[in-house]
């Protein structure tokens, strides 16, 4: 299936209806294929995060269409969009956004429990193996606030992968990390794409990270200025 479009934007414009309407992104045409690793860059306020939210069905376009696996999402109910996010998308944000009441393992298994496709035992095992993949299995029963920043971000990545989504979206995943942890997370994303064949779209202002991706989309003032494949 590699090569077929997984997510497509057609003439997408998003205007924030405020006292003064703010145009976040404008006339975006973008096709992202299965298995691609794409970095989105741009100055702050250029609309790169907004573009990511539109790609991840978190936000709805004011004009234009968002297609997931060739299917136009216009007219989908909020519940339908939520179900797509649950099964097919994984989000990683700048802040880990782990739920403080739950242990590390519980945070990772939450999306699987919600999806309800696996049994309790399988969910537990998959949660543990995901944590093991990121060398944090020993932290499984700790609370998020007992972990370091780098460890937390790895938990967040593990959680994003919980339901084995074909598409992973990251919003400044290294933005809050030191150099060493940045490199670890960066390596993880490269591997998600190269070895596991997932589509990865990452918003970043980290030049190293952006350059590690085979494709880079650069935004200026809400429009795509460059779309480079290496």
């Amino acid at each position, binding site marked *: 299936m590699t090569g077929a479009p997984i997510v497509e934007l057609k003439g997408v414009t998003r205007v924030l209806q405020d006292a003064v309407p703010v145009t976040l992104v404008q006339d975006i045409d973008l096709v992202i294929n299965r298995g691609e690793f794409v970095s989105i860059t741009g100055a702050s306020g250029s609309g790169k*995060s*907004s573009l990511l*939210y539109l790609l*991840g069905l*978190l*936000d709805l376009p004011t004009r234009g269409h968002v297609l997931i696996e060739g299917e136009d999402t216009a007219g989908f109910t*909020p*519940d339908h969009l*939520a*179900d*797509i*996010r*649950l*099964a097919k*998308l994984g*989000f990683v*944000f*700048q*802040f880990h*956004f782990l*739920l*403080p*009441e*739950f242990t590390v393992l519980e945070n990772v298994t*939450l*999306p699987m*429990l*919600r*999806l*309800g496709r696996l049994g309790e035992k399988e969910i537990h095992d998959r949660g543990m193996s995901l944590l093991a993949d990121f060398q944090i299995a020993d932290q499984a029963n700790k609370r998020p606030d007992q972990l370091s920043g780098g460890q937390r971000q790895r938990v967040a990545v593990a*959680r994003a992968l919980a*339901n084995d989504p074909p598409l992973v979206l990251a*919003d*400044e995943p290294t*933005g809050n990390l030191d150099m060493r942890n940045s490199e670890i997370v960066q390596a993880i994303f490269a591997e998600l794409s190269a070895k596991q064949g997932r589509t990865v779209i990452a918003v970043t202002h980290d030049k190293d990270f952006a350059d590690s991706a085979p494709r880079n989309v650069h935004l200026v003032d809400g429009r795509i200025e460059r779309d480079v494949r290496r």
Partner: protein
Amino acid sequence: MFWRVSIGIAAAQLAHRRRQTIVSTLGVALGVGFFVATSALMSGSEKDMVQRLVDNAPHITVKDEFRTAAPQPVFIVYPEAAVSLTSTKPREYLRGIKNHGAKIEELSRQTGVIAEAALTGTAIVRYAAKDVSAGIAGIDPEKERFLTTIEDDMQTGSLMRLKTASQGIVIGQGMAIRLGLGMDDLATVVSPEGIVRRMKVVGIFRTGNLLLDEGQVYMLLKDAQVLLNKPFVANRIRIKIADPDMAEEVAAELESRWGYRTESWQEVNRDFLGLFVIRNIITYSIVGAIMAVAAFGIFNIISTVVMEKRRDIAILMSMGFRASDIQWVFLVQGVFVGVIGMVLGWLLGLILLQMLGTVEIKVPGLMDTQKLPLEKGIFQFGVGGLFALVSAIAAAWIPARKASQVRPVDIIRGAT
């Protein structure tokens, strides 16, 4: 399975804020507990009082009166005529219920019905140069003891002794003290007809009602007929029926058949029964206020949590949780507080009832102390519990709905 996730998140959040959860739960528990206790006391005392009203007096009294004065014959003949008569006087007729013997017999044939012919009037009781005006009731002691509770209120002597003594009277304690009368003393009874009799005190009662205790005299019907110079006349038919709640209907039927003014106990005590309605409104609004305060507590806490948890809500939504899942998370917290509060409230209510049950009060007019009348029914617990659940769910529903309307992008955009 997915609803278990919502419940799990709700439980985790409640456990995380243990102190606030306990406080809001106790609020609900207090509301339910006091509702159970006050409602038991209120409806218990209402039943108790109604029981007294029903037992103290006949259920139905037929009087030798009419509800509306008879019209002048000229108005019957010319109903539309422009005639006016002044200084007319209604026709005088012999007071008393016609053919009361047959009526009593007819009523008594029905099962559970006790009917008694009585003659009431006024007289003066005189003893040792002091006198007191009194209401005379000529009765049948055999039936009177079933019609009213007077026999239970006897201090000394008994109603039944009227039958064996010649010219006996039974008087109230208040009158006995005022006149200095004791048992077996001979009092002089003077009627408005000018008839004077020497009558023997064969019983003294005390009801606690001053009007009766100082001003009521019981004697045999035939003695009253002689004293009031109304031979063979009865002006009251006093009736007890099997089901007191039917008294109004039966009274209306008797009145339409016989024409005599017929009063049920409900009609006589109408204003008194109206007081219960007001009393209930007061009670339930106070208890309702307690529950409202508890509900505001729940509302406040869950609203605060929703505000604090906006980031968590956003991340759950971005993960793929539906808006309804989020709503459940917070609704479940309200339900949890409501249910636990309800159960604790029931326990508190049971304890309060136990404590109230040991309180003894002295009712004037009764020699022995009395326990508080409590109605320990499923109703109090059911309504209290329902009240708690409904208010807890309603209080949680508003912030839960608000939580479900969070737009994750707004939160995430603000945080990064």
